[in-house]
């Protein structure tokens, strides 16, 4: 303990004797640690954002997609064509128990035009159920109604952000006529802002009745039998505990409808919101790790800077080492002195880096409207531990070189 305190005092004295050099050496660690903390907290923020966006879609949702997501990567062959039609949606609605709503929809990308403004955005052909299922509520006007769907009315509901981009402030959107892919539509509603950020483009969408989307906008999206296609079927389950059984019965119903043999893979995918959150969590987790690894490289470079300076310092102070040995310093004492110097450099650098990293994370938070960066204690712990490890690792070689010096030669060193 005594030795440690003394070594610490000696190390601090040594470092303060060369303030500029010590500061520059620390800078490497400071930048590295700050980068680790900022990037990890941004990654964490993205993860939180994605999760909350997915949660804001609605509750107790299952999504049915055409094609088999799991076997797609493995070059799967589909025994039947992978598509979903209204017949699938109707079958689920009539045959699967414990569901509260089924909302088939068709997605595409369209040009929306008003006056001289044209915006390319996402179109959703939706049924009236889509609103409540996905938590879309009109801020102004109304959502799509069963009549619109039945009569094929050319009406549109706009996400609030799209509306604000499309119309000048003095124009009241409801009742205006816009053109979607050059076909005129009447605006009947503007949606409320979706909670939980704007992941995807939930506030930039334009929605029209599914029947209109299928017949007027995408007349060519048809199955071989000529039925209009749909992109996804949202199924709302009455309670969380029925999610698995409902998913299983949807699978049964669709397999039967698609006439799949027992040995065939599914030609559709039933996935729950929780699964989606998991999948995106994995993706953003990898992203965070990747960002952290890049930041880690700069920390490594900082560590090499420490080693470099420590080697210079050992050479420069050869005579000092000789003097210390002559008056009775053991190898361990010299080793400890230089190791502690390296550690102090990296830990003080780490402390400043943590502050800078937190400041960086807060700055990102300020600058971006949607992203809330999350500074986790783990990130700080990781950065601290890593900088200590860097100090130890890159300090040990110069320190042991100092400790091994021959006192006679060290004393003679000019």
């Amino acid at each position: 303990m005594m030795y440690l305190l003394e070594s610490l005092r000696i190390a601090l004295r040594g470092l303060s004797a060369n303030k500029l050099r010590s500061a520059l050496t620390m800078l490497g660690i400071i930048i590295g640690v700050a980068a680790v903390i900022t990037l990890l907290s941004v990654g964490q923020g993205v993860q939180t954002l994605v999760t909350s966006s997915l949660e804001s879609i609605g509750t107790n949702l299952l999504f049915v997609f055409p094609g088999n997501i799991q076997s797609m990567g493995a070059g799967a062959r589909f025994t039947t064509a992978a598509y979903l039609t209204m017949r699938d949606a109707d079958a689920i609605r009539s045959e699967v128990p414990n569901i509260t709503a089924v909302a088939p929809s068709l997605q595409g990308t369209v040009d929306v035009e008003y006056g001289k403004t044209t915006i390319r955005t996402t179109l959703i052909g939706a049924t009236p159920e889509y609103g409540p299922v996905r938590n879309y509520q009109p801020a102004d006007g109304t959502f799509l109604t069963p009549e619109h769907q039945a009569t094929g009315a050319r009406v549109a509901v706009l996400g609030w952000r799209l509306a604000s981009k499309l119309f000048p402030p003095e124009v009241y959107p409801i009742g205006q006529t816009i053109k979607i892919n050059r076909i005129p539509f009447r605006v009947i509603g503007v949606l409320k802002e979706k909670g939980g950020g704007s992941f995807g483009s939930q506030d930039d969408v334009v929605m029209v009745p599914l029947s209109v989307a299928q017949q007027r906008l995408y007349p060519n999206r048809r199955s071989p039998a000529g039925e209009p296609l749909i992109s996804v079927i949202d199924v709302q389950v009455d309670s969380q505990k029925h999610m698995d059984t409902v998913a299983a019965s949807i699978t049964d119903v669709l397999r039967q409808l698609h006439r799949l043999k027992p040995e065939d893979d599914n030609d559709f995918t039933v996935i729950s919101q929780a699964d989606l959150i998991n999948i995106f969590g994995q993706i953003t987790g990898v992203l965070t790790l990747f960002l952290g690894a890049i930041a880690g490289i700069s920390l490594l470079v900082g560590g090499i800077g420490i080693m470099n300076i420590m080697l210079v310092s050992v050479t420069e102070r050869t005579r000092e080492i000789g003097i210390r040995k002559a008056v009775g310093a053991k190898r361990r004492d010299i080793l400890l002195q230089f190791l502690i110097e390296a550690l102090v450099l990296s830990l003080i650098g780490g402390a400043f880096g943590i502050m800078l990293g937190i400041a960086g994370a807060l700055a990102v938070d300020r600058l971006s409207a949607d992203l809330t960066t999350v500074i986790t204690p783990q990130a700080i712990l990781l950065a601290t531990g890593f900088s200590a490890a860097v100090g130890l690792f890159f300090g040990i070689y110069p320190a042991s070189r100092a400790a091994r010096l021959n006192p006679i030669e060290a004393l003679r060193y000019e």
Partner: protein
Amino acid sequence: MEARDDHVLIDVRNVVKIYRMGEVEVPALRGVSLQIHRGELLSIMGPSGSGKSTLMNILGCLDQPTAGEYYLDGVNVGQLDDNALAVIRNRRIGFVFQNFNLLPRTTALQNVELPLIYAGLGLRERRERAIAALEAVGLGDRIHHRPTELSGGQQQRVAIARALVTHPSIILADEPTGNLDTKSGKEIVAIFQRLNRQEGITVVFVTHDPDVAACTRRIIRLRDGLVESDEPREADCVYLEPEEAGALGFST
């Protein structure tokens, strides 16, 4: 005046030291034997290349003999490892070098405390002993000066205080006056003489300066790695420090 007693402090028996320079073996010491008793003040002399620096390094436990035995206070030092040698240097040996070898950017006090740090002493005891040692060499008023703020003679006094502070068995002084003007050199020799006379500290000068050697009561001459002559004698001169001289009624 005779502080010497019969206790044999240093017993060097047939010590050989051979340096290896690549393929060539260079013998620096070729069988040196000598004894030094407690309380002696002596000089080791010799031209450069005579092996006197090598002998000092071995006496100071900075180096190990290739062959032969070296007993320091009855302990066979030739058998010890690095750490044990460091402890011996710390407890039993004080070094004074020609170029002072003080730590730069460090006060006189901190320089003198250095050996006590490695001896594991506490802060307060260290401070007390370091101040006492600095007072013993007449630098009680300069303890917070850095080496660059001190004259050569004062720096050498700090070095002597550092050598003294652990109460070593022996002080080895390698050309202690080599970097000093004549007056400061005499003052430094006077300090050694007083320490030897009053405290009974054993002092070995390693020097080629006959004036310094003349102030000791024994001169060992080395030549080509062997002891050429080793004779006790009367010291030609006794330098007194001003205070001491004043007390005795002399003027310097």
